[in-house]
């Protein structure tokens, strides 16, 4: 009997083969989206928080995937490669938002607390809101490592494949991030 990971890999291989045939390219890409779109959405959403922003970043991510799938060599897991593109797009978005924040006069509107309050798709209680505020204070890479480990329960090896950082470095990043978040949550 095949394990779910093996089944996953076989599915990915079949999708990649179909993507290389021009007549089945669109159908294969649809299959790829069906399989991964939700996971990519939530990965991006946890980083950029708001739904509308997530939607934009996800669209950019998928356009990049579509354009770059031919160059995917298959030496990494497909999911790792997709995650890497989504992570890069989300970080690019965060950097842009930070830049706008620093030049914008209307800081109240850009404040995460106010945005969470106004976001109809955020259902969290006060502690969840505070957790999001704490995550917002983390440097982008620490934030990514924390999200992948804390929410996605990813192994350090899998995170290392996505981010291209050593496992030791990732452990240190996660440790620092968790400490900072803990301090933020427990302070008055």
């Amino acid at each position, binding site marked *: 009997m095949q394990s779910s990971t093996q089944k996953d890999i076989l599915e990915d291989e079949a999708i990649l083969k179909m993507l290389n045939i021009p007549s089945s390219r*669109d159908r294969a890409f649809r299959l790829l*989206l069906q399989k991964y779109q*939700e996971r990519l959405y939530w990965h991006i959403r946890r980083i950029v928080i708001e739904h509308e922003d997530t939607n934009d970043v996800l669209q950019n991510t*998928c*356009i990049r995937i579509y354009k770059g799938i031919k160059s995917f060599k298959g030496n990494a897991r497909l999911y790792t490669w997709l995650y890497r593109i989504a992570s890069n797009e989300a970080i690019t978005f965060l950097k842009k938002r930070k830049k706008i924040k620093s030049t914008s006069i209307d800081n109240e509107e850009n404040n995460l607390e106010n945005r969470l309050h106004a976001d109809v798709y*955020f259902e969290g209680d006060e502690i969840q809101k505070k957790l999001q505020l704490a995550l917002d204070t983390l440097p982008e890479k620490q934030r990514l490592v924390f999200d992948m480990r804390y929410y996605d329960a990813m192994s350090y090896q899998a995170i290392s494949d996505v981010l291209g950082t050593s496992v030791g470095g990732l452990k240190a990043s996660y440790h620092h991030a968790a400490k900072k978040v803990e301090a933020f949550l427990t302070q008055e």
Partner: protein
Amino acid sequence: MRENQDNIHKELKEIAPFLAQIRQKETKLEAPNGYFNHLEDNILACIKAEEETQNWSSTSLKANEATPQNWLLAIKKWLLRPSVGIGFAMILIVSIFSIIWSNSQSSDAILMAVSEIEATEYIHENIDQFSETLILESVIGEDWTTIEISDEIEIDFDKYIEDDLIDELDSELINELL
């Protein structure tokens, strides 16, 4: 790819006990109802739109290649722009006025350099080129036509102008006649 949840919880409990206590799998973030039902269609539509935009821009890039025909077309288009036309018209008008102005300035300067004797000599030599009326008006005045001349006296006007009137012309009048 995924790690045992217990391992992750144990690790977190050691680093950040409070955080481990509140750890939940979800972020309490929600997606709009039915969002994932149409997501792949929306994304594929976006990709197609992006491709079309790229095709269009690559076609227009081809049209913008630096071939001589494209250069001529670009120049023609540029010349047909109203702002360019108005600009050229303004330059033309200013040029015409400056040519006229500089010509009048230069002829005045030449006349100023001519002495009274030289002017008189010039008139003597080219008397046929001057209008009699103008000479009479300049010397006698505009009412020269009212001067009564006896029928018995035959006046050779050319001779009169040549012999007598020219000598009466002062430099100002000569300048006027020229």
